[in-house]
């Protein structure tokens, strides 16, 4: 496994996420399919990283590991100094609730909840009062420009609007890191642009650390750094561009 040109200290920020010697394989029947093998790299605070690469190269797998919804076969993943691979299931769930905001390709909103209720949902895991939750959810929705759509159900919103609700849901808990897996994969060009600009703003103005998987160069251009996961015998990372 090779890591090329790992960029050091462009921003001077501390390392937020550190993967070291991470391997992951899947079992398909009797066959074992290696996906990631001995991957080591860092993500710094306030970074906006785009993770590119061909389909099947393991982008989602890597993102899932960073987000703590999948666990590696080997290696450590430290986020803010804490090795999340050592956390038991229940603590990992609490850790995700506090530290990770998720943005999915297909939005994954609860269809029976309104925009506001969807955004409020992660806050029900905190001990905030009802009013406080409402206020924060309102604020998050206003940050993505949807203050006038709070009472709408997901089915009453366009794809781009739904993804913006999802972004509001992801940031409402003020997490350490936002992970986005193909957030524009299901959107038309205009909606994609709006979503990416929001993410850019969250990163630039509010200092959110974002890790985004995409195979779209136009989307990746919104990030500060692009890395490619290439698939030879094994996947390896290529630093593509420095801002």
């Amino acid at each position, binding site marked *: 496994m090779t890591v090329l040109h790992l960029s050091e200290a462009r921003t001077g920020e501390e390392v937020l996420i550190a993967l070291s010697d991470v391997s992951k394989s899947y079992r398909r029947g009797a066959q074992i399919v290696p996906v990631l093998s001995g991957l080591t790299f860092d993500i710094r605070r306030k970074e906006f990283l785009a993770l590119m690469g061909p389909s099947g190269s393991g982008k989602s797998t890597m993102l899932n590991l960073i987000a703590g919804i999948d666990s590696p076969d080997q290696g450590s993943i430290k986020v803010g100094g804490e090795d999340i691979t050592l956390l038991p299931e229940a603590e990992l769930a609490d850790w995700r609730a506090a530290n990770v905001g998720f943005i*999915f390709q297909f939005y*994954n909103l609860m269809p029976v*909840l309104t925009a506001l209720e969807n955004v409020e*949902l992660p806050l029900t895991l905190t001990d905030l009062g009802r009013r406080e939750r409402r206020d924060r959810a309102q604020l998050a929705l206003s940050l993505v420009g949807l203050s006038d759509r709070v009472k709408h159900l997901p089915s009453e919103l366009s794809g781009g609007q739904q993804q913006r609700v999802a972004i509001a849901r992801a940031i409402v808990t003020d997490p350490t890191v936002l992970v986005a897996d193909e957030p524009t994969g299901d959107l038309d060009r205009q909606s994609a642009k709006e979503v990416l600009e929001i993410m850019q703003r969250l990163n630039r103005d509010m200092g959110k650390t974002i890790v985004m998987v995409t195979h779209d160069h136009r989307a990746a251009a919104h990030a500060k750094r692009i890395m490619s996961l290439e698939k030879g015998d094994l996947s390896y990372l290529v630093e593509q561009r420095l801002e």
Partner: protein
Amino acid sequence: MSQWLTLVARNVLRQRLRTSLTLVGLIVAILAFGVLQTVVKTWYAGVDGAVPSRLLTRNAVSFALPLPKSYQKRIAAVEGVRRVTHLSWFGGVYKDSKNFFPQFAIDAASYLDMFPEILVPDEVRRAFLHERRGAIVGRKLAKRYGFKPGDVIQLRGTIYPGNWEFLICGVFDGRDPKTDTSQLFFRWDYLNETLRVRSKAQADQVGVFAVDVAGLDSVADVSQAIDQVFRNSLAETLTETERAFQIGFVKQTEAILISIRVVSFVVIFIILAVMANTMAMTARERLREYATLKAIGFSPGHVARLILGESILIASVGGAVGIGLTPPVAAHLAELSATLFPTLIVSANTVMLQALAAVVVGILAAVLPMRRAARVSIVNGLRALG
């Protein structure tokens, strides 16, 4: 908590057709269960209503064989016996053999004294005691055939030959809902005098003696003492408590009762299967949502409780409606059954069983979907089609 309830309630309303069909099934099942349980209970009602200090003395060989009327005095002479009366099954047909209802020939005064559960207004009682061909009919029977005081009705004898005319003196009510008011009582002296003319061999006999015992403690002794009196006589007696007598009677139909019981539980089992299938389909379709919830920090228990809540909510609504419909449906069935069931009263116990059945169905139906949703890995759940 409120958010959880919101999710549960709105999820229930998501597949309206599926939820409605499941609800209909649940309602019918809980209703059927309740009605069948009530039928069984009512069958045993005579046993529950039995007065512990009343003994019944019958022919030791069979229910169907009579005893000499002359036994009455000898029973009355047994120590501990306070009062004795008698009743005889008449088995007549009113117009058509499908019109079944019980008719008894009684010694009017002593019988009504010993069976206070039969409520007869004073003027009706006076008329009954005065009129030799007189008869009193229960409220339900009167309603069914439109019998009114002053009517003369005719019964065709099946045990006793010929046609018999009775003058309706009035209507009696039951002291409590369990009292059978689908019966007709007429005077034994009328029966006997007619038999002396028509069928001498059947005269001077009665079906069963009812014995009122002075103290509850002596019930067992008295019943033995009575049978002792008639040992080695032409017609030996068997004396038992009213309760034991009723049980003996109900025993003849026990196989049917057991089948009805079994069916009532089979119905619940079937709806459990239907409900479990509904919940499994529902949970399978929502795997991606459950995975999303888990990703953003909800525990597997949270997700499981969503499914459990939904299942219990559906089961509770179905159960409640089913329970609510049971009394009117049972009452209607009692009407339809004419005099087979005097009344079908749904007991508190039955309602509790129904509620329990509904909740158990709700819980059990959710078990497998809950396990699946709680266990599916987030990554696999997110890949599921939603």
